[in-house]
């Protein structure tokens, strides 16, 4: 049962099976849903509310409370830039400017081709590596603007190749 905008709700069946016996499993179910779709589509939230027997308002309440949940579609790759005190002093604003020049996006935005989303976070606990960034799951410390743009370009290209192969 693929929804008109390409959301396949059948993918959720396994998630519900896994948590069917568990009370108060709303957050792990939302996390699983986000792993599947990359964000939390409205159709999935309605399905979760129906299956869990809670109101849609409650589901939205939880999904909007936590910064980890996204209600809108994001890029295939996520770059998190730390702008905590140490990273800020060590040049995160310069990294943001470089990304703006290179990809024409601001923090919180996604490139038009859907490749990259950049986000500002506050302190990743690695101040010794300032300024620190995380590209998908890969931590990159002591970043400089040109180096970062190169690494991002390579990361995206590698992923495209891997997908192509």
């Amino acid at each position, binding site marked *: 049962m693929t929804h008109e905008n390409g959301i396949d709700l059948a993918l959720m069946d396994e998630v519900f099976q896994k948590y069917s016996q568990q009370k108060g499993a709303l957050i792990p179910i939302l996390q699983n849903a986000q792993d599947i779709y990359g964000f939390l589509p409205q159709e999935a939230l309605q399905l979760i509310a129906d299956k869990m027997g*809670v*109101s*849609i*308002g*409650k589901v*939205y*309440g939880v999904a*909007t*409370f936590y910064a980890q949940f996204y209600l809108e579609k994001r890029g295939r790759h996520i770059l998190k830039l730390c702008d905590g005190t140490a990273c800020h002093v060590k040049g995160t604003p310069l990294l943001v400017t470089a990304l703006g020049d290179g990809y024409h996006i601001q923090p919180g935005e996604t490139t038009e081709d859907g490749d990259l989303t950049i986000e500002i976070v506050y302190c990743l606990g690695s101040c010794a590596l300032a300024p620190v960034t995380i590209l998908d799951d890969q931590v990159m410390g002591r970043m400089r603007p040109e180096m970062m743009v190169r690494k991002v370009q390579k990361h995206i290209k590698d992923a495209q190749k891997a997908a192509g192969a």
Partner: protein
Amino acid sequence: MSDNTVTLIIDGHQVTVPKGTLIVDAAKQIENEIPVFCYHTKMDPVGMCRMCLVEVGTPAINRETRQPELDEAGKPVIRFFPKPMTACTTPVSEGMVVKVDSESALEKRKGILEFLLTSHPLDCPVCDKGGECPLQDLTIRHGPGNSRFDYEDKQRFPKRYPLGDLIVLDMERCIICTRCVRFQEEIAHDPALAVENRGRRAHIVSYTDPVFDSHYSGNTADVCPVGALTTRDFRFGARSWELTNAPSVCNHCGVGCNTVLSTRTGQIKRIMPRQNEAVNEVWICDKGRFGHHFNGSPNRLTTPLVRKDGELVEASWAEALDLVGQKFAAIKEAGGANALGGIAGARLSNEDLYLFQKLFRDVIGAHNIDHRVGLSATLEDETAYTVGVGCGTDLSRTGKGAAILVIGSDLDQEAPVLYLRVAGAAAKRGARLINAGGRQTKLDAQAQTSLRYRYGTATHLALGLLASVVEQKLVDEAGIEARATGFAELKKALQNYATAKVADVTGVDAEEINAAAKAFAEADNGIIIFGLEAGNDSALRAALEALALVTGHAGEADNGLIAVLPHANSRGAADMGVVPDRLPGYAPVDGEAGLSAQEMLAGESGLKGMLIAGVDPAAESEAYQAALEGLDFLVVQELFLTETAKLADVVLPVKGAAERDGTFTNLERRVQAFDIGVPAPGLAWADWLVLVAIAGRLGAEWLYASADGVMAEITQQVPLYAGMEFENLTAPVSLERKTSHYIYEGMSFTADAREGVQWPTLAENNAEGGPKLPLRFIEPAPVAGDEDGFTLVGSRFLYDGGRLLAESQVVESRIRQPQILLSKLDAQRLGVANGDEVTVSQNGVSVALPVKINRMVAEGTAVAPRNVAGRPVEKLVGPGGVYATVKVEKT
């Protein structure tokens, strides 16, 4: 010190309270009230707003000896917690010491208020809450004089955000106490609101479609401790201190919610609940709150009308009354007293109804009177007289150990505030709720047991439950001995209602019947509530009466029957004997009974003249209309020029309930007085005064000068109503009973709290040596065989096509239009979507109705609202009927 109490010290005062009491409630015993925003005594505490921070200490315990540490003076050493505690979530403990007004506690609350005020706009001069706002009040008591906050960082939200048609949200004023969200979840069971985001971006949203879909939305504006939620009705209506507050009783349904009419310059500005724990606690439904605009409608009748040359023209009272007197006297002269008849609506007060029957019985000399037309034809109830719920019944306390059996009632639609209380008893306080009905209703979500019977078999189910109680040997032998007779005969009759057989007839699982019977019989207290969809069936009422008596759930508080009667004074209409066969107080008439409403409206009734007050039979069917047209002389007492009034020879304008005083008797037999709130338009009179004048024109000398005076006679003439003098009914409740639900709980606090008086049932009397009640068995009507087609159910909906509601613009968008609710699968099968028209037919009668797909409706069932424009469903199920098997086809 008993085992169930705890003694503690609050600000130096010793206080003893029951175990488990929260500090905030314990502190109400002393002068120092603890300020709160999020706490509400009717909801679970959450500790969100932090306004109730206090210092708390407990007796220190020596770690080695496990004994309390004592100081040099031999007094226990108190160790204070390093951080302040929220008084609304912390239960008291023995020896606890609480400091509410210490310097440190005051400092902390000052800090909290400074935070709450960081983004709060200073628009009190245009805020509806101004003058009765906890945030204003607490700012005076606890607030800082200035703010350290940066104005540039103020949180901005859209102003005037509509949360549905009735409620407007100003998010900048909101302090996220979540009382509204929790009210909708915990009390209304309509989780229509939620908090989105967090911290300073948190805000209130509604995700339901339609937005904020609930019958109880107005209560959220009451409980809002700031001006964030306002009602469309009262928005910018008046300043609260300019209002005059009159205690009143809602005139829309049989629950009898206590209300406050807040008026200014002769207009109702708003209606709010008035606390009565025994009736409506601190809530009212949106119909009661917003359905008052009919009072000031430009369509109100303001002067008597008399038919001249075929046209209704304005006349003086004297002219109109003289004509009524002459004509009625002439008709009686020519055709005898039985050529006259009367129908009075169940919206009239007890005083009106008493005089109405007295006019016909004493002055005219006929028993041709009735109130059972329209919705009143769908449900009668004589069981209130025998086994109605005991005096002192309080559903707000019903909980663990009690069982409630609901049969054939969609309470959320028929009696919303009763729904709140029944749902609360089950969901919040642990009562066992058994919901028996022909279709799924909102109450099923709170019921532990849902018994789904085939329409037309409710009586069989009731007899099956009764037989199962006997079979399982769960009868209350002592109770039967004391109160009832004829148990042996009843037992014999019940042999035909063995569980397996009843299961077969009703479609309810046999084990479920046995389990429900056991749960109900074994409960400490048991209440049976029955409504319209069980059918207007004396066999059913006999079975339920017997069930209450046999299980011992009769004759005591919190036990007995409640019929969900449709109108504000349906109970009073029966009590006052506005029926052709009974006098006031349920005594049978001497000699032959008069004509019933159905007989009077059947044509060929032999009637020449009629008096119709507060009811509109002509709108119901062409047949009724023709019968009324066939009369020689018709007099109508009305608020509006209704279809019936248009046929009248004399129309007499009357006052609405808000414009006069009087009493209503609610469905728990509670007689409640209401005061005058606003002046009536034009020359309208109270109904009782009109009746006095008519009686005078017919030669009677009635000396009533006020509703109060009529009631004084009722207390003399109707033994059930002894003790119902206005003086008793309007006596304010004692301060102790007023408990705590005051301003901080969102109450209008300026009008008197009264409780009303219930009259005792026979089952209560016979505990004191009164006559025993015969256990009745009436053979139920045979169940029709399975026919092909849909089971069409004519259901009551809250917002129906009644005239009072039609004149109340605020709820206009919610009023039900004729429609048919179908399940999704049936709609697909018929090839129809929302809004498409289907033809519904039975025995040659057919009506066209637009389709609405509804997920509560089961396959094979179709639900259509009663009492809406054109009365389509009544044409198929009959005026007093509930269901019919019909054919549904795409038009």
